[in-house]
């Protein structure tokens, strides 16, 4: 959603860039230039706009429409029920569990990943032997396919799997738990897996942000007698702010829409018991598996609404300065 609108914005700006002055001047050339500018704008944005309309806006409209029907997917929807599906969703304790699990993942990811990723990024930003290797290493989980990661952790964390074996071998057999079967514990196991999977992305973003911090600033501070910690606290971190805020934005939206890893790792029973479900898994379980298509669409609309409002609020209040001009590019 936000990604597509961004790319539209980019195309817009690119085409709006003033053309290099040409040797022949005059009135007719300027008019031609304006005309050409419009050809370019239309030519370059049309494909994106058409695709965006067909595959984003139109399906969204359909979802909204279908969500107002009691519809089981056989034949066209005919039984209009208004907002009944939305009421049923919020009345279902399993949906409220899903919403709560999403909140745990959003907040948990931020609380765990931000300090951890900043710490690791700061370390990896210093010069030492093998730095490139470690930088590569932290990115490995992020580039692995979600389903592969899910299957791997499901095998590791199965009862008497390698995690349990390792703990027992270390003499920590007392710590062995039903990582994926002890209902109150599962969401925390999942949070661990999600952190393992996605922290590499945060680290690589922060490293990119750190490389943009001018070296002269910390040098000057060091000459003035600032310690390494003081430099990080008062110079590096504030300058890393925009990167951190962008990452929080991406992490938040990703957490709200979390589906694949949980779908693969957690057993279907733990989803329907509300121990390991999210709004997205709830949507698929009810929409496709229970064949409640209208109801499933209403859950999709709720999920979209929550993500959209969260994104708007975050952009409005937190990202305002960072993205100024990017989404509201001035015409020249």
């Amino acid at each position, binding site marked *: 959603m936000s990604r597509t609108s961004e790319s539209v914005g980019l195309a817009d700006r690119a085409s709006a860039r003033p053309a290099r002055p040409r040797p022949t001047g005059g009135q007719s050339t300027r008019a031609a230039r304006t005309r050409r500018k419009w050809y370019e704008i239309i*030519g370059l944005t049309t494909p994106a706009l058409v695709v965006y309309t067909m595959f984003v806006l139109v399906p969204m409209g359909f979802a909204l429409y279908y969500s107002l029907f009691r519809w089981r997917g056989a034949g066209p929807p005919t039984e209009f029920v208004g907002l009944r599906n939305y009421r049923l969703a919020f009345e279902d304790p399993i949906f409220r569990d899903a919403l709560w699990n999403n909140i745990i993942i959003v907040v948990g990811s931020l609380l765990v990943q931000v300090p951890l990723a900043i710490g690791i990024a700061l370390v990896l930003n210093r010069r030492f032997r093998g730095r490139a290797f470690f930088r590569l290493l932290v990115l490995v989980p992020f580039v692995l396919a979600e389903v592969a990661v899910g299957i791997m952790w499901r095998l590791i964390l199965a009862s008497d799997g390698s995690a349990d074996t390792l703990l027992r071998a270390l003499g920590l057999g007392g710590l062995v738990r039903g990582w994926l079967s002890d209902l109150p514990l599962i969401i925390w196991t999942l949070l661990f897996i999600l952190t393992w999977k996605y922290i590499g992305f945060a680290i690589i973003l922060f490293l990119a942000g750190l490389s943009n911090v001018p070296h002269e600033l910390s040098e000057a501070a060091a000459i003035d007698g600032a310690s390494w910690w003081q430099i990080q606290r008062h110079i590096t971190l504030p300058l890393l702010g925009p990167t951190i805020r962008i990452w929080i934005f991406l992490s938040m939206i990703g957490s709200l829409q979390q589906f694949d890893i949980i779908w693969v790792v957690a057993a279907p029973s733990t989803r329907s018991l509300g121990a390991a479900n999210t709004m997205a898994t709830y949507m698929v379980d009810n929409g496709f598996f*229970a064949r409640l298509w209208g109801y499933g669409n209403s859950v999709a609309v709720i999920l979209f609404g929550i993500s959209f409002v969260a994104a708007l609020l975050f952009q409005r209040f937190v990202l305002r300065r960072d993205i100024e001009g990017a989404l509201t590019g001035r015409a020249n």
Partner: protein
Amino acid sequence: MARSRRVRTAMALMATTTLLLLGACTKGSEAPAEGQLYANPVTLTWWHNASDEGPGKTFWQKVATDFHTAHPTVTIQIEAIETNQLQRTRIPAALLSNDPPDIFQAWGGGEIVDQVEAGYLKDITDQTKTEATNIGSSAAIWQVQGRQYGLPFRMGIEGFWYNKKLFSDAGITAPPTTLDELKQAVDKLKAKNVIPISVGAGDKWPAAHYWYNFALRACSVDTLKKATLEKVFDDPCFVKAGSDLKDFIGIQPFQPNFIATVSQQGAGSSAGLVATGKAAMELMGDWNLGVMQTLAGDSWTAMKPNIGWFPFPAISGAPGDPKAALGGGDGFACAKNAPAECVEFLKYIVSPAVQKDYAAINVGLPVAKGAETGISEPVLQSILKATNEASYVQLWLDTAYGSTVGTAMNDGIVAIFAGSGTAEKVVDDMKAAAKK
């Protein structure tokens, strides 16, 4: 020059976009089937769920090739799709789009009722009278209001798969025939430190099947038939099924962490526990032999002679028919506008000759009379015998009641397994789902 090139580029871009749009919107329309059978060349698209490489997939390919050889005007295009994806998303979406496959997997029961009501399926009653008669009572699962809309190729009842050696080691001389005997067997196996029963509650339906069997014993056949037809669950026998199940879970017959154990993947799955000799019993359908064989790998040769099967035990004093059994199958149906050759192909699939070959690959029990001789496994022969001797075969309740009530029912039963559900809530949730 430069300018006109740019304009042309822009126009080319727009033209491409338009073409893409057109391509997405136009749909290849097939010429309607007309006139004599096999007169015109037709292509049948066939969606089945034997998506894993193995004997099942190879077999269907052979069936299609053989049919094409016998009738060269008919070309069959197969698409093998994983069963949940096929049944939950691909087929419903294809039916909605008015461009469905000609012949596709059909579960029967509640689902086929919805599909018939929406006008998606071809009425094949008149063309398949011989086949339906030869298949017998299970053909009724693919009927709606007395009309035939599909035919099964596989059908079997479920029961306990057990390890004869673990049984005799624990001093159990004969397979249990009553619930009390089953409970005693559980105690004896526990005393030997063997997992008495493995259950794949992680997948929900393997756990739910216990409730189905208790319902089959607690409810009269009439009540069960009425529930399937009218989605009425007011009879107290449905609550009784839940409380019987609660009692049974109370004796702790299952493996640790059973709530998240899956049924068919890996050695730690419920089938894997039986296949590797760690658990003594599992309640499962006729396909379990093939599943266990895959999971056991090389050790299967040593394990196979130990594997036996017995039907779900009777409950003394229960009003349900003790000879009634729970079962299910797989079938195919033709789309409403499929060419007439589709029905001929369906008839070919369920013909005794093809069914006999199907029986020989040991992936499921055939339905057509005359195919029994193809079964080589003694344990499968005993299931076939029990299937034929059953006084009444109730289709898996989640299939019979349709996905919506079925899912609510299974979720409620899993909550009983997790310790948080109640017998009453299962029935309440089923009633609520019927209105959802």
